[in-house]
Every structure is written in structure tokens, then in C-alpha cells.
């Protein structure tokens, strides 16, 4: 075996990616706790959860699933483009990802506004007078989708930083760890939504 050069880009990239994965594990357990709370309350108040979940619009949920899945592909493709030295294509693909993320947030905005219109928001009189299980469902719905939306926003900021750094030539076919790790983060946002979507919107 040759002596690995600790200053080589390859070693940097391996350790950098390992660090990112360890961070992603903490994110996984953060949402895992909420999934568990959801599962327990769903088992306790299954009738109420059934009733409350029907308030959610499965069409909006499906649309947002598609936006996130496509954006996951475009961000993965942007990495391929950088590795193949296709800088303009990489910029276009990161922009597409940001565009899809914005569509997701816009959809979420309309979805939440619609519920707020019917006074279904945390702490409202309408919500307080609902059955205990329904109150818990909406509490978890806002907490889980809200925390997820916060992750989408952080992902958008990260991707914007990448956009600037690709344009300026800081991210290149030899130095793309930042884009690689940001893409991993973006995929995690997608992974969490893949579980949230059936739990909240489909299983009614």
C-alpha cells in the first residue's frame, strides 16, 4: 500500500463526506423522535387522527412530493455536470433545484394559509375546541411540516451559496466537496418528506 497523502484532495473529500453523514444521522434521529410521537398518538387516538387527516389535501402533498423528487435529481445531476466540467449546465441545474424548492415553499404557503383561513392554527379557538386527538394531529402536522420547511429553507440558502461559488470558479471538477455535501443535505430533506407524505397525507 502506498502512503496516503493526508493533504491530498481525495482524503479531504472522504473525511468531509463522513462528517456530513454523521450530521445527517443526528437529523434523522431528530425527525425520528417526532415520527415516534406521531405513531404513539395515532395508535391512542386513531379515530381523531382519521378525521383530522382528511382535512389535508392529498393533491398538494403529491405535488410537493414530485417537486422534491425532481429537485433531488437535478441536484444530483449538477454534481455530475461539475465533475464533467460542464459549468453552465451545473449552474442551470442548481438554479432548477432552487426553483423547485421555491415551488415547494409556495405550495406550503398556500396550504397553510388555507388552514389559517379556517382558523386551524396552533392556539386558535377552533383548534382548542376540537377533540384531543385532532388537536394533537394538527400540532404534529405543524411541527413536522414546519421543521421540514425550515430544512428546505436552509437547503435553499446552501444551494445559493453553491451557485455563487460555481459561478466564481471556486467549485471546480477537482474541488466540489461543498456541492457534494450540500446535495447530501438536500437529499435528506427529500428523504424526510418521503416519510412525512404518506404518514400525514395518505394514511387516513
Amino acid at each position, binding site marked *: *500500500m*502506498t502512503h*496516503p*497523502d493526508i493533504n*491530498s484532495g*481525495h*482524503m479531504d473529500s*472522504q473525511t468531509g*463526506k*463522513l462528517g456530513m*453523514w454523521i450530521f445527517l*444521522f443526528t437529523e*434523522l*434521529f431528530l425527525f*425520528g423522535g417526532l*415520527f*415516534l410521537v406521531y*405513531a*404513539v398518538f395515532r*395508535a391512542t387516538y386513531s379515530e381523531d387522527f382519521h378525521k383530522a387527516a382528511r382535512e389535508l389535501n*392529498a393533491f398538494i402533498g*403529491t405535488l410537493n*412530493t*414530485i417537486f422534491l*423528487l*425532481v429537485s*433531488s*435529481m437535478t441536484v*444530483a*445531476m449538477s*454534481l*455530475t455536470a461539475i*465533475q*464533467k466540467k460542464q459549468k453552465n449546465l451545473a449552474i442551470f441545474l442548481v438554479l432548477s433545484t432552487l426553483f423547485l424548492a421555491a415551488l415547494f415553499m409556495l405550495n406550503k404557503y398556500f396550504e397553510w394559509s388555507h388552514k389559517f383561513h379556517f382558523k386551524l392554527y396552533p392556539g386558535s379557538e377552533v383548534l382548542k375546541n376540537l377533540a384531543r386527538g385532532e388537536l394533537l394531529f394538527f400540532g404534529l402536522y405543524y411541527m413536522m411540516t414546519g421543521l421540514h420547511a425550515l430544512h428546505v429553507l436552509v437547503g435553499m440558502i446552501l444551494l445559493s451559496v453553491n451557485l455563487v461559488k460555481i459561478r466564481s470558479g471556486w467549485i471546480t471538477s477537482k474541488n466540489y466537496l461543498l456541492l457534494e455535501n450540500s446535495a*447530501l443535505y438536500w*437529499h435528506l430533506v*427529500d*428523504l424526510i418528506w*418521503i*416519510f412525512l*407524505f*404518506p*404518514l400525514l397525507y*395518505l*394514511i*387516513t
Partner: protein
Amino acid sequence: MMDHEEVHVSSYASLAKVLVALLILTTISVSATGWHLGAITAAVALVIASIKVGTVITYFMHMKFESLFLKLLVTGVFFIFALVIIITFIDYLLR
């Protein structure tokens, strides 16, 4: 030995195929709500979601082409994650 390894570059076509597979799984998942499966509805939805998550990790997150160390680490942590959720939930159900 390892440090001159070729970096695997995912092709655009393969990434597009993965997306098609994910969209098909989403369609199945959405239409499954109309099949009136009763008690196993949740299980079906979660199994499909798990397949989707596995696909995203393998191809989009490039796990298929990572080192054995990272593969074992990720598999191990997801296994522990599943155990934590399942065992805690069973503990609750059997109380």
C-alpha cells in the same frame, strides 16, 4: 491502494431512470389509498416509502459507489434507527 481510485460519476441517464422509478413508486403509494386495504394500509405506505428512501440513498446519495466503511456505517445507523422506533413503539403497544 485506495487513494488513486477513480471517482465514479453518475450518468445523467441513470439519474433520470432513478427519478422515473421514484415517480412510479409515488403513483403506487397514492393509488394504494384507494384500494381499501384496511389495517395494512399504513404498513403498505411505509414499505413503499422505505423502498423509495433506499433508492434515494443508493443512487442519488451515491451510496452504491462509496467505500465499504461508509456503506457499513450508514446501514448500521439506519438499522439502529429502525430498532429504536420499532422497539419503543412495541413497548408502548404492549403496556
